[in-house]
């Protein structure tokens, strides 16, 4: 095999996610009454970016062979916090943003510490921390409300040069400034290695604990970025349990659509971002097809089912049945 073939194989998951997204988005805009306009893109981007952040956060944990069922709650908690803090003068606003991100990182680090040093299974540990984070969110915002610096909010959910959605640019910046350095760092590699085979990684002398802790912490940070954007998008904080849960579950779907292996060690947050955008487009398709309102949830479920079943197609190429059990 040539170099490029290996590279292609490495990025296959991400590219597939990109392809799924592009196809869906073309179907969507082609049928949209308003068509492929800056407004439509901006609307789709603002909605998609929120899940993209949460999915990116989920990815960081999933590559360590963990799962974060509290990610939606961190998203809510930081949203509620931002609706208190991200207000006022530019300086106050900046301070508020920093605090919100720090709290997100702290939540992530707490998850990480419990999983790594407490040696608990991520799935239950994060069910429990999720309840705690939601409780705190509810303390902060017993009722929806609060406000945000609207200049900042409008700037980040608006358009740059009247065409490019600012939220997409922010997303790209986060990928470049957080994900790429992380995934190429020694700790990032340790996180991958721990996800692929923890014993081997340990025997190879990798800093697995620090790598995993960093992954969890950054996950919390990125979820907090999602929370911030939620605040920018809605101007409020809202501790809505169902919504937090929905984001958690959606993020898992997005991560899988994005070619990230739930068994750890494989995949990229960039794939997950496309997975998230594709997943969001499933919802958008409701606009362009004239469906009976009662059939809409079923339609969404079926599209989701179809999208994840795409992965099963590879199965028919498997000639050696042992490959089923990797």
């Amino acid at each position, binding site marked *: 095999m040539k170099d490029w073939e290996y590279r292609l194989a490495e990025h296959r998951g991400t590219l597939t996610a990109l392809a799924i997204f592009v196809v869906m988005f073309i179907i969507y805009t082609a049928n949209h009454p308003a068509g492929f306009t800056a407004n439509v893109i901006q609307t789709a981007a*603002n909605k998609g970016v929120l899940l993209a952040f949460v999915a990116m956060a989920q990815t960081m944990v999933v590559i360590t062979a963990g799962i974060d069922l509290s990610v939606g709650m961190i998203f809510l908690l930081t949203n509620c916090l931002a609706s208190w803090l991200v207000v006022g003068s530019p300086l106050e606003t900046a301070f508020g943003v920093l605090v919100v991100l720090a709290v997100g990182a702290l939540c992530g680090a707490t998850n990480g510490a419990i999983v790594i040093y407490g040696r608990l299974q991520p799935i239950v540990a994060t069910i429990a921390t999720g309840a705690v984070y939601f409780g705190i969110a509810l303390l902060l915002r017993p009722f929806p409300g609060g406000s945000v610096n609207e200049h900042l909010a409008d700037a980040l959910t608006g358009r740059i040069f009247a065409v490019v959605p600012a939220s997409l640019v922010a997303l790209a910046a986060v990928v470049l400034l957080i994900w790429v350095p992380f995934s190429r760092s020694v700790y990032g590699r340790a996180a991958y290695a721990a996800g692929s085979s923890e014993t081997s990684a340990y025997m190879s002398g990798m800093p697995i604990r620090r790598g995993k802790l960093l992954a969890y912490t950054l996950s919390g940070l990125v979820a907090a970025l999602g929370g911030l954007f939620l605040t920018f998008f809605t101007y409020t904080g809202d501790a809505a349990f169902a919504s937090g849960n929905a984001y958690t579950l959606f993020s898992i779907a997005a991560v899988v659509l994005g070619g990230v292996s739930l068994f750890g060690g494989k995949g990229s947050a960039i794939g997950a971002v496309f997975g998230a955008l594709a997943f969001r487009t499933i919802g958008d398709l409701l606009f362009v097809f004239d469906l009976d309102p009662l059939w*809409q949830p079923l339609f969404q479920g079926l599209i989701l089912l179809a999208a994840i079943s795409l992965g099963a197609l590879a199965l028919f190429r498997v000639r050696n049945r042992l490959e089923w059990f990797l």
Partner: protein
Amino acid sequence: YAEPEVVSGPAAEPECFAPWSADTKFFKFPKKEGPYRIALANGYIANTWRIQMVQTAKAYAAQPDVAAKLKEFKVVSTGEDVPAQISAINNFIDSGYDAIVVNAQNPTAFAPVIKRAKEAGVVLVAFDNILDTQDAINVNVDQKGLGQLWGEWLVKHLPNGGKVLEVRGVAGTSVDTDRHNGIHERLQASGKNFEVIEVVGKWDDGVAQKVTADAIATSGPFDGITGQGGDTGIVQAMIDAKHPFVPFGGETENGFRKFCAAHAADGLKCSSAGTGPAQVAVAIKTAIAALEGQVVPQSVKLPLAIVEDPNFKEGQDYFQSESDNFFVGNSFPTCGINFSAQEIMKQSKENQ
């Protein structure tokens, strides 16, 4: 773009479009030529109330006189996620709909959308979960008033005060808070000694039943009960625990009313009140009126559908042979909206 003119009342159909309060503004939108494109942006769909609401909306839009005014009526349900609903409304605005009716997942999150709708000259009407704004039309249920009604009912039936079980709804929602405040306001105002045990039933029969059972076992017995929803479950829990029947202020579920009718003699004195899912029809009607350039209040006050002991009538206030799950109060005679819930659910069955 076309902003509504703020005018003085009264509204076009004052019986139906009753202003929320004396200082409610009245809007007069520039008249648009019909037929109109109207969209319903619903959030959550997977419970009976919402399904009944969507069915009512479709049925209303299909009524010949309404259908004649509509070019298109589109419904989209976006689930529990607020941003998805916001995006849905944005999409409707971008696609040139004339009016958008919304059951908002969050009352405060829609400020940017309201701004955009206003700029685009789109009429935005919120109902059930309304919007925290002066710039869109709200079709309102007096949630606090409902709480007050239940509170008063208990005060009336427990002249000496007593121990009351309050089964609350979903924490953090304004509906829950308003109703809760209403209840407590009246209990306190009575000056009697009321001890209130609160549990969270989440407007769900199963959850309400479980927490009621727990409360009865640990803090019971109670002298009165009030429930915001899941009331059928609450009564069921009382029956299971052999708790004596006591006065009850609750919602309008058919199951609850069936129990009220059956056990009134044993002490289950009920006040059943709420506003049914048919308020969506009022919202649509309001939207059409606004588009037609008629004067409408910024905040419409819906009448409560109240039935109190001993007035439960089979076939009108409750339906013995029908499902427990639907909300009975489904008509607004003052608005000419007269669906019975049962008719809605049946009719659609034939439609499918």
